[in-house]
């Protein structure tokens, strides 16, 4: 009996994570990285709704012997899902990851985002569209930078889309262009989105004059219900006809918004805003975090992605603010250029930053609603940019 007991203990000990972790110390490093991300999410409140599940997914996937996620099922020679391997050795996170791999979760997140978004400021001031377009500059500058650093065009496209400051768009694009970079790109994108209040203000101040920053903008006109109902249908048709590859994102975003604005689908709207959005966020966060295995994440590529992601955010902010400056001049000083920086998406954080920086210059100034226009235009702009990348660059 004692012999069986000792053998059982020995077997358990040899399979235990405390022993096997030292066979691949990268897993230990990744667990420590996940602790850092957990601290940032819980302790510092950095995008906790996504960073927390991402960090925990990273922790789970790096537990030795747990077998929750198998990279080889999704990233292999054929670059297609290995259904046989999935059915024989698939773990919990492998099955949940299907929603990412098949491009299901990001459009569902967009459905919820659409149901929560008020496009009124954009409809009232459609000039904001152009600021949303200018802020996409960062995507293409980062694309060039990534190419110069030796990434393939598809990888460079996935890295560039970080500059869209839009998590679901970045994940949607990366799963189709370079899924092996998904963990690094998602973490970089969400980390920088959380750091928008730190990254953007110095650039905004450097590119604007105190006089321009103090401009008080005219109150926006009221937008009729009919306009708000027509808007999502119109945008879906125009954008999807122009860039069909972006239809899953734009279509779902606008469907969610139509739920909200129509006023006849209140139950669907509430579900999209709350339950569905929360469920999908959990699945998306945990599984994206699970792709950050030691072998995938602890590479020079990750460092390059982090650097290029920062460049993408900075250039995106510059593009928006510079176009804001141009509109300030052309409008005879009626447009505050600070609202241009909100064009980098990151809803509503980037608009809040415009509001805060503007209020520092003129405490009685309220730019929030004006900045929401470029902010939501940026969501549409980054989806269009993603469509361009997806239609030109080779898919895996």
């Amino acid at each position: 009996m004692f012999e069986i007991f000792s053998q059982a203990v020995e077997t358990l000990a040899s399979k235990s994570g405390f022993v096997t972790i030292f066979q691949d110390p990268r897993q230990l490093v990744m667990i420590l990285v996940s602790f850092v991300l957990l601290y940032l999410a819980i302790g510092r409140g950095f995008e906790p709704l996504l960073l927390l599940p991402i960090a925990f997914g990273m922790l789970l996937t790096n537990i030795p012997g747990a077998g929750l996620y198998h990279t080889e099922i999704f990233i292999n020679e054929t670059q297609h899902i290995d259904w046989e391997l999935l059915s024989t050795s698939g773990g919990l996170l492998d099955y949940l990851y299907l929603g990412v791999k098949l491009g299901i979760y990001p459009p569902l997140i967009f459905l919820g985002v659409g149901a929560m978004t008020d496009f009124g400021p954009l409809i009232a001031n459609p000039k904001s569209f152009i600021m949303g377009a200018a802020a996409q500059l960062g995507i293409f500058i980062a694309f060039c930078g990534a190419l110069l650093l030796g990434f393939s065009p598809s990888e460079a496209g996935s890295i560039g889309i970080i500059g869209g400051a839009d998590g679901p768009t970045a994940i949607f694009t990366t799963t189709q262009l370079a899924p092996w970079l998904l963990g690094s790109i998602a973490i970089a994108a969400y980390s920088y989105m959380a750091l928008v209040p730190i990254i953007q203000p110095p650039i905004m101040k450097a590119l604007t004059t105190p006089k321009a920053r103090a401009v008080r903008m005219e109150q926006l006109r009221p937008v009729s219900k009919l306009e708000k109902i027509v808007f999502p249908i119109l945008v879906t048709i125009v954008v999807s006809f122009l860039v069909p590859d972006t239809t899953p994102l734009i279509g779902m975003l606008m469907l969610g918004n139509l739920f909200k604005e129509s006023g006849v689908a209140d139950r669907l709207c509430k579900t999209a805003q709350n339950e569905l959005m929360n469920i999908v966020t959990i699945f998306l966060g945990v599984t994206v975090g699970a792709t950050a295995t030691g072998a995938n994440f602890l590479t020079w590529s990750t460092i390059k992605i982090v650097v290029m992601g920062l460049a993408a955010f900075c250039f995106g902010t510059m593009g928006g603010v510079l176009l804001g400056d141009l509109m300030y001049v052309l409008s005879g000083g009626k447009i505050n250029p600070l609202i241009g920086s909100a064009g980098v998406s990151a809803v509503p954080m980037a608009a809040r930053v415009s509001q805060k920086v503007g209020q520092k210059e003129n405490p009685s100034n309220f730019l929030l609603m004006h900045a929401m226009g470029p902010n939501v235009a940026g969501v549409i702009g980054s989806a269009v940019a993603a469509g361009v990348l997806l239609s030109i660059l080779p898919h895996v």
Partner: protein
Amino acid sequence: MDLSSFSTPEIAVAMVFTGLVVVFCALVGLWFIVALFGKAFEAFQNKPKPSAPAAPPAPKAAPPAAPAAKAPMKIEQGIGDETVAAIVAAITAMTGGKAVIRSVKRSREARSNWAQAGVVQNTQPF
């Protein structure tokens, strides 16, 4: 699309150019369409106004009566009696009845002190 036959700088330049042109085209196109729609809706909403000329004679009749009454208070159309009473009471309380109220009209300023206080309250969390 097969990009293997192009050099890295060629791909980079072509992508920046194509990407920015398409993004700007899409969003500038939306700008014009939404602006046109806005104008159309505005025109549509303002349409019934000219078809109601019967209403203006009443306010027009009021100004001639004003000088006759010596100190009439001009009240902008759409402001209710209760609102006027509240404003008059507040001003009287503040000035001790020394002020003469000649007119009550909506402030044309972008944001009044009360509205500003409301906005501050609503945007405080941001």
